């Protein structure tokens, strides 16, 4: 069964959380991302593994509208929590 997974990971020496939303469809993609961001401290980074398509457009837009800093690298969405 597909599910969103969140794990702690160390990327270039900085603790970053990761979230896999490749198995999800809108709006669950943003719901899962939003809830994960809620659990994080301001300034923390979340790396979201995403599929090509709708979510790759919608999740960064929703994250920006919520005030977070967002960068998209391929199918990875990097979000720094506001």
């Amino acid at each position, binding site marked *: *069964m*597909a*599910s*969103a997974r969140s794990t702690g990971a160390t990327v270039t020496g900085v603790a970053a959380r990761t979230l896999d939303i490749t*198995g*999800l*469809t809108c*709006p*669950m993609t*943003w*719901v*899962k991302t*939003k*809830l994960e961001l*809620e*659990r994080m401290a301001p300034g923390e980074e979340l790396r979201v593994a995403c599929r090509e398509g709708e979510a790759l457009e919608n999740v960064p837009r*929703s994250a920006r*509208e*919520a005030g977070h800093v967002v960068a998209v690298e391929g199918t990875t969405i990097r979000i720094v929590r506001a």
Partner: protein
Amino acid sequence: MNSRRSFLRELTGSVREVAAAARTGSGTFLASPASSVPDPDLARYSRQLVMPEWSGAAQAALGAASVLVVGAGALGSPVALYLAGAGVGRLGIVDNDDVELSNLHRQILHFTPDVGVPKAHSAAAKLGFLNPEVVVEPYQVRMDAANAAGLVEGADLVVDCSDSFETRYAVNAACCAARIPLVEAGVLGMSGLVMGIRPGESACYRCAFPEAPPSAPTCAEAGVLGPAAGTIGSLQALEALKLLTGVGEPLLNAFLQADLATLSFLRVTVTRRADCPDCGRA
């Protein structure tokens, strides 16, 4: 009567089946395939969770909340349906009446086969069907000054959907004494009123209406239009969600007077009365 009983039996059976299916994730009742909805609980609330104003914390607050709905009639129907749908953890439903045919045009929790069935139980069956995650407790009793304190005890919020000034004053007094937030409302014909109350902080129902009008017509005498009750009940549910979650701005120290014949809404400011017998500081 047999057909009514079998209807409720079937409905209750279906509710159990859905609940079991939801727990195991094996249900044929789930509209979406499990592969695209990995978390049925979250999917249920996803359309409110995506709202910028809403949050996981707001959802958790609802899930932890216990709400008492006084009356399962014209106002109580939309109130209980929306609160159950939104994910309030525990819903108490207080109503001593049986469903009558004349109720059905406005009391959308009850259906024709329910005629003769206690409203509290008819309501509990439908709410369980709508959201098996909600714990619904039917209380087949009429709330009055004698039992109000006991019934509201332990509630995080009370929504008064009763149909008499006597009951409203009893509910208001009990909520003020226990400091339980309350959403009051009334509807008649094509007009209605809604008021949110945080006892001790904002004006209470008796501050706004110290005495019942000498000859207030009842719903049975004056009539009421179904969607008018639905509108007022929906506003009540909205205010309840605001008070429970902190999302939005609750209608406090004011009541909303709605003239639905002309769609005119008037917000009337109310101030606390020092000599209020229910919430007064004197």
